[in-house]
């Protein structure tokens, strides 16, 4: 277990009572505004001292209030991208970026520096002070500052909320690489399901200071009963291998023997990817689809139907590629006569799978 957190803390507005384990990879804290996400992250960073806490990172006890252990923040070597920037106003962007290295007496690796700067698109800002940056620029510098300190764990508190989709799409692969290549575990806060689905190995859903659900990403996000931030968070994760890249800009993948066509992905043939399929993007068809613009069709069998409170229902379809979720209306369930055991096709538009939905696979994603 990479990180193990158990804490109890009373705040004026909320009592936090949280325990979860974060295995290697990315653990996303998911929950509504005010649920206690930042507070948990602060405790892990050593900035909030809870009434009671036991926090263990890779075997090292960071905090154990019972035994009076409290490792100060600067000894934890945990990088933190704050929700509100917190850049040093007296240092220019360059000095902000290398602060973590300088202050710990480490040399700046020019290549790593250049890579981070390029990825974040902040090359033109290096000589400026934070006061002269736009909101998104500040946030990008803050990400770079945490990354460049080469921490043994990263805390990311809504790191991409201030960024546009294009910029997000540029930064996400970089975070994946840090997760996979450098093996830096991350604790990540977000309210964007796509971001969570793409990055997270484990999802911890917080509600009003408590853990509502915790587990592997695929299991948690495909749980239709669980919609803390709205129904659009529900989706399935499929594991697929890149087969080929085609001239018309599509990549062909193989998911358990089923062909999937996606807008060109960056990974080379042979690479294993995780593809998030949002439940609301999947259409079910009783027969094989014909004359449809959607290129992806996964034959399967209805495994489970979950009728919610609203007009919708989540239909889980077992396919060769894995379990796919589809959010349909109750009316459609009735109209098509869907029930467990019924054969059907899960139809998915190629373009529904946005760049942010496709991530590099990080170890096994166990389903439920």
């Amino acid at each position, binding site marked *: 277990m990479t990180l193990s957190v158990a804490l109890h803390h009373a705040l004026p507005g909320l009592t936090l009572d949280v325990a979860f384990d974060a295995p290697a990879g990315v653990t996303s804290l998911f929950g509504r505004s005010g649920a206690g996400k930042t507070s948990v992250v602060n405790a892990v960073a050593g900035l909030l001292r809870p009434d009671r806490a036991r926090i263990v990172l890779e075997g090292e006890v960071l905090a154990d209030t019972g035994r009076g252990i409290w490792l100060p923040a600067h000894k*934890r070597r*945990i*990088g*933190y991208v704050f929700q509100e920037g*917190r*850049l040093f106003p*007296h240092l220019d962007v360059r000095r902000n970026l290398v*602060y973590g290295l300088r202050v710990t007496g480490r040399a700046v690796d020019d290549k790593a520096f250049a890579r981070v700067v390029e990825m974040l698109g902040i090359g033109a800002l290096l000589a400026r002070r934070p*006061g*002269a940056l736009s909101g998104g620029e500040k946030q990008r510098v803050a990400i770079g500052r945490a990354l460049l300190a080469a921490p043994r764990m990263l805390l990311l508190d809504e790191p991409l909320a201030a960024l546009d989709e294009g910029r997000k799409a540029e930064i996400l692969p970089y975070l994946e690489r840090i997760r996979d290549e450098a093996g830096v575990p991350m604790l990540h806060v977000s309210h964007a399901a796509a971001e969570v689905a793409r990055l997270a190995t484990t999802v911890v859903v917080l509600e009003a200071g408590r853990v509502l659900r915790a587990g592997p990403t695929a299991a948690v996000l495909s749980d239709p009963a669980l919609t803390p931030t709205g129904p659009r968070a529900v989706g399935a994760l499929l594991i697929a291998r890149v087969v080929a890249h085609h001239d018309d800009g599509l990549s062909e993948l193989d998911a358990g023997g089923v062909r999937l066509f996606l807008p060109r992905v960056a990974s080379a043939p042979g690479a294993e990817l995780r593809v998030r399929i949002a439940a609301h993007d999947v259409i079910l068809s009783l027969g094989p689809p014909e004359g449809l613009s959607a290129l992806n069709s996964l034959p399967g069998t209805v495994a489970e139907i979950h009728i919610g409170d609203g007009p919708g229902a989540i239909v889980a379809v077992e396919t060769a590629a894995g379990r796919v979720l589809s959010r349909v209306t109750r009316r459609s369930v009735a109209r098509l006569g869907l029930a467990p055991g019924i054969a059907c096709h899960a139809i998915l538009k190629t373009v529904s799978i946005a760049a942010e939905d496709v991530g590099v696979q990080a170890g096994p994603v166990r389903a439920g």
Partner: protein
Amino acid sequence: MGWLGPEEWQAVALSLRVALTATIFSLPPGILVALVLARGRFPGHALLNGLVHLPLILPPVVTGYLLLLTFGTKGPLGSLLAEIGIVFAFRWTGAALAAAIMAFPLMVRAIRLSIEAVDPKLEEAAATLGASRIRVFVTVTLPLILPGVIAGAVLAFAKAMGEFGATITFVSNIPGQTQTLPSAIYAFLQVPGGESAALRLVAVSIAIAMLALIASEWFARRAGRRGGGA
């Protein structure tokens, strides 16, 4: 040059030396005490705060007496220090000590105010980047409080240039050794007709202080050129 006698030039030079020494040497303890008062919560807080302000509250003569009793060669601290070769009595160092102590409350207040205005969130951010407490202080807190430190230093310098009562009581007035500008000015004012001579020295005093002020404003502006918050 002609309008100041050699003894007066001596007083000018000495005053500068005394004020600079007082300012420079009181900066580190000034910052430390300001830090402790701004951030510390301990039983003796009010006492320390009071102690620091004492030279402001007491008539300077009283402070001078107390210095004499404490740091004189026969005083408890004075005799101890004398053994390791540090003597204040009748030395310019004593004048610097008196000036430093008189200026201390002003310096501490300015620095303390600046420390209280520092956003602790920035210090937290520095800690998460691996900076130890002391590194955080040097790389974040100190640069951010620089305007306050400069303000404190310039206040201390000005006060040290003007300090007279405690200084003359403690180290008296020995031309070339402890005769500072203010003692010289005071002396001129004690005798009928000494006004014009006093005025000349006052002018020198003001000129020096003005230069110091302008320099400090310039530094503070440079340090503060942050273009707004983070």
